[in-house]
């Protein structure tokens, strides 16, 4: 027998496992013929895992997904309300101001916030993320800049304690 014929005759073991076959004995016309495709269990497990992942993400994160720097320990609060829509985030880290992850010099803070306000269609809200041990003096420039830019709604990020 030639080798090429050996290769073409070989059947996939995977396909073989997925198909239901007859008992192997001669059964007339349908002898050795594939009866039906078996349930592909591995693919079903895959799909099931993906659904589990989807549900986990859907149930655990609730509202809007927000990144918090690992260098920041947010203060705790009992009356914190959940975030329901995407809002601009201003992070204060060691006296540096990051507006949506972009470093903003202290002197340009008011101008940037004013720019944010002019771009916004609705009233602007700003979420402030800062370390619980930070001195209030580091927050003061933001309050002044916000007041200058006309932003009155400030939302201070906290970790709910209840």
């Amino acid at each position, binding site marked *: 027998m030639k080798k090429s014929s050996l290769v073409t005759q070989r059947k996939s*073991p995977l396909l073989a496992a997925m198909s239901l076959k007859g008992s192997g004995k001669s059964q007339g016309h349908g002898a050795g013929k594939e009866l039906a495709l078996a349930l592909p269990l*591995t693919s079903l497990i895959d799909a099931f895992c993906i659904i589990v992942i989807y549900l*986990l993400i859907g149930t655990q994160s609730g509202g809007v997904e927000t990144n918090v720097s690992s260098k920041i320990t947010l203060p705790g*609060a009992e*009356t914190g309300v959940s975030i329901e829509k995407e809002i601009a985030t201003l992070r204060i880290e060691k006296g540096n101001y990051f507006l949506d992850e972009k470093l903003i010099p202290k002197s340009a803070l008011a101008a940037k916030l004013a720019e944010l306000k002019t771009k916004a269609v609705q009233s602007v809200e700003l979420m402030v993320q800062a370390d619980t041990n930070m001195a209030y003096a580091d927050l003061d420039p933001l309050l002044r800049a916000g007041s200058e830019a006309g932003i009155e709604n400030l939302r201070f990020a*906290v970790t709910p304690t209840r």
Partner: protein
Amino acid sequence: MKKDLNFELNILPVLDILSVLICFLLLTAVWMHLGTIDTKQAIGDNAASGEKNPPSLWVTLAKDGSIQLSLRDVTKAKSLEDSISKLSTGVNWAALESKIQALKEELPDLRTTVVRPEAQTSYGDVIRVMDQLKKYQFEGVGLSPLG
């Protein structure tokens, strides 16, 4: 005789392992719930617009943890100038809470409050004071910039 090079890569078990790994990573990840304390900051100058200021409670928070409470623009003839001494651990939170509660019972219409921290006051303490005020239905909680 040459060796047969044809083989089938069994990809499904690999995908299974991958899916289980993703599940494992998701379960072990830190899911932190985030909330916010909302404030409404003053813009511009109220005095210029000629608007009458609403009755308000001013909470001055010192660096060492001592607190001063004062009422402003209250229609009743009552005036309040009270202070809460610090504890060795910092702010006396229990005393602050009881004073806010008593004040709210006495003046239920008092809804506006301004928190005035000092430059070196901890941000965590400022948020906690605001949290206490929100707990007792103070809706207009504002932060005062440094003088």
